[in-house]
């Protein structure tokens, strides 16, 4: 499903994020809560106090999972199975929210990487994250 070129672009984007998972993750969450306030319902403690330490910690966790997805982009289902269970049984985040998170992810990348964030990278990354979202929600029913 992912071409060799797309895989290369995805890896390229990840290389620019790796090492900064906490910072990028925290900004991702901050943008999500600011731009799409309804998403805060899924993070009641986090979004209420917006404590920097907690945002960094949760951001780190989320981006670490994205990193795992990048490392296993040929077998997302297996790699993300525990997370898929978590989302289906515990978190039950409505699937409509994933595109909102993905949009914020693009904006984080765009504002940090600027011209380095080429249209090919954006296309490949969007395709990849959409695939991750499908896997995370496919055990819902």
């Amino acid at each position, binding site marked *: 499903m992912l071409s060799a070129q797309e895989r290369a672009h995805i890896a390229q984007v990840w290389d620019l994020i790796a090492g900064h998972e906490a910072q990028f993750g925290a900004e991702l969450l901050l943008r999500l809560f600011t731009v799409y306030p309804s998403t805060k319902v899924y993070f009641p403690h986090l979004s209420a106090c917006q404590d920097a330490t907690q945002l960094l910690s949760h951001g780190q966790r989320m981006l670490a999972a994205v990193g795992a997805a990048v490392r296993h982009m040929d077998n997302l289902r297996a790699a993300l199975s525990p997370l898929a269970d978590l989302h289906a049984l515990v978190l039950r985040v409505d699937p409509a929210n994933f595109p909102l998170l993905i949009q914020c992810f693009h904006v984080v990348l765009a504002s940090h*990487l600027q011209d380095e964030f080429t249209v090919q990278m954006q296309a490949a990354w969007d395709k990849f994250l959409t695939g991750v979202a499908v896997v995370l929600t496919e055990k819902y029913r």
Partner: protein
Amino acid sequence: MVVLGEMKRKVLPLHFLQFMRLLVVYPWTQRFFDSFGNLSSASAIMGNPKVKAHGKKVLTSLGDAIKHLDDLKGTFAQLSELHCDKLHVDPENFKLLGNVLVTVLAIHFGKEFTPEVQASWQKMVTGVASALSSRYH
């Protein structure tokens, strides 16, 4: 709104060429542009003169939106009818275009494109998308 006005002055002359990222990131949107010629690759799309011209037209129209934020539905009434009756564009595409525009702005403004600024722009493009679909029937 001051921020939007300021940004409009900076944005319109720049990067409208990048605007048609939509056609690359969401290739199914190319369905509306069969007459545009070569859209076979990212570089073909970004270098296509008809794409550039259309990008400029759309961005100018968005510039009008910024001037009439209090009456987007009125401002876009005719364009809405056009997109429904003549162009047959699924309104979902307006959301996609709005989102791509926001990422292009983020590229241009970098750190200045704070979460609050993003929120204002997302709100605006949502308003434009809503106005453009308001006359659909």
